[in-house]
């Protein structure tokens, strides 16, 4: 079966080189370089201006996948699979204000971010997308870094439903724990 995989991979690569969006951009880039030599009217300059604007922050990956970068220290059901998102709770639940944190590297920009894993509470276990990563997880005596505790604290109900992963800051030190 491996030879079939290799075959499909080679064909895909060739196809991608010929017809990918990147290839289209390359050709377009060539046209733009050529066009730069032609004096632009003021209106055209205004249209061109957004290209010089700062780049938008970027993430990559599927937030309903346990391998998603923000979930490096998580242990629980992903709210993204339960009617919520990576940073919001499903309808009718309540987000815990007290949490544990992890430090995860965003592969899109290479930065380490402090992630707050706020639990969503008040309904029984979501039961979907159980994800346990535990990177940087510490035992419960180190409560700020533990995912072994039910963090439905400070909420009307202590019943755990799912976990979010919210960016709350850029880690000061790249090697920070």
């Amino acid at each position, binding site marked *: 079966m491996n030879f079939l995989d290799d075959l499909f991979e080679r064909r895909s690569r060739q196809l991608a080189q010929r017809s990918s969006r990147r290839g289209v951009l390359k050709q377009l880039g060539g046209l733009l370089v050529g066009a730069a030599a032609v004096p632009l009217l003021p209106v055209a300059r205004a249209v061109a201006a957004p290209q010089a604007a700062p780049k938008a922050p970027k993430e990559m990956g599927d937030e309903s996948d346990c391998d998603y970068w923000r979930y490096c220290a998580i*242990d629980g059901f992903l709210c993204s699979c339960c009617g919520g998102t990576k940073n919001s709770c499903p309808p009718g639940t309540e987000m815990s204000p007290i949490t544990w944190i992890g430090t995860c590297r965003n592969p899109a920009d290479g930065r380490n971010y402090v992630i707050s894993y706020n639990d969503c509470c008040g309904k029984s276990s979501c039961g979907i997308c159980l994800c346990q990563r535990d990177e940087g997880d510490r035992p419960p*005596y180190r409560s700020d870094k533990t995912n072994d505790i*039910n963090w439905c604290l400070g909420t009307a109900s202590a*019943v755990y439903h799912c976990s979010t992963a919210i960016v709350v800051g850029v880690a000061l030190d790249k090697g920070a724990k």
Partner: protein
Amino acid sequence: MRRFKNRVSWAGLLASTVLAATALAQDSSLPPLPIEATGTVQSLPAKYPDEWFLVHDASFFHMSDGKVYVIDTSADTVAEQVKGMFNVVLMGNIGQSRRRGEIYAAETFHSRGTRGTRMDVLTIWDMASLAPKGEVVWPTPKRYMGMPQRFAVTPIDNDNLLLVVNFTPATSVTIIDLDTREIVNEVATPGCLMAYPTGQRGFSSLCADGRLMSTQLARDGSLIKQTRSDVFFNSDDSPIFEHTAFIEGTAYFPSFSGEVYPVNMQGKVAQVGKPWDLVTKEERAGNWRPGGIGLIDADDHGHFYILMHPDGADGTQNGGGSEVWVFAAAKRERVLKIQLQAWGLSLAVSRGKKPMVLVTNPTDMSLELYDGTSGEYIRSVKDFGQETPLMLHASYQD
């Protein structure tokens, strides 16, 4: 098609007639069955045999249905293995008193099931009847709720007092008089968690700053003194597990990286001893490390048993292991390696002359039983309605 249907109907009628005739053919030589009483409920011995284990199914997918099965691992069939069950609602914890024949379960209820007023309760289960025989209600709900622990509900002082760990995230310990079944005190344990029995009437807690804090209590549960040890580990870089095994008053705390810290708990204050390696140089090169939930336990012969896995890294510490290693604690010597059938997440070791090791297999959530002396696989215990048996307990704790 119609003719075929008719044929089937005739065949059915014939079968019914034969069955009816068989049923009617009574054997009058046999006496009839006696009339049976309704309302009969079984009971158990007040002290469980050594082969019995308490299997805590935290019901991770249905936490309000947490429960503990009483399992006889010496039996061959499920019907013989399951002796009974009691509930531990919402990520609770249990402790046992062999002297009193009681099991203590810290539970949480809400007045509307998953919502409404929260109530934290210590339920006192009778070991013989498996019925609740008393309860203690927290004035303000705050008990520790999380993955199951062995030292969150701890009897001390010859089982006169019971300690229950709280977390809000402020940490404290509620002290209950087991004679009067009343809360007699609550002691703050700032920055420290769990209650490991220490001395005649005290406990120690593990602290985030890498210390142990020992708390001495008076007979009435009032606070005498709290003492913090020197820093002996770093909770960022060289953490130790909160799970431990007690052997003759010494608690053995494994570290994430494969050392073990012996802590003498016989005096009023915990005395931290020199750590020693669980792994050889070669094994360390292969990143053999401890891992799991209930990853360590002891027998009555000076041995502790610990789940180990190769290729360990940050993040593998809760995942369990492929082998159980057995150490003679006093000699600091490994005496046995048990290759598990598949993988182990938690373990418990029976007391008595013949230690048996019960291991949770997380691949199918069954339990596997091994001979603790030879390492021989004996049997699997499965299909008893379990979902996530995350913590196992020998049938009593000293």
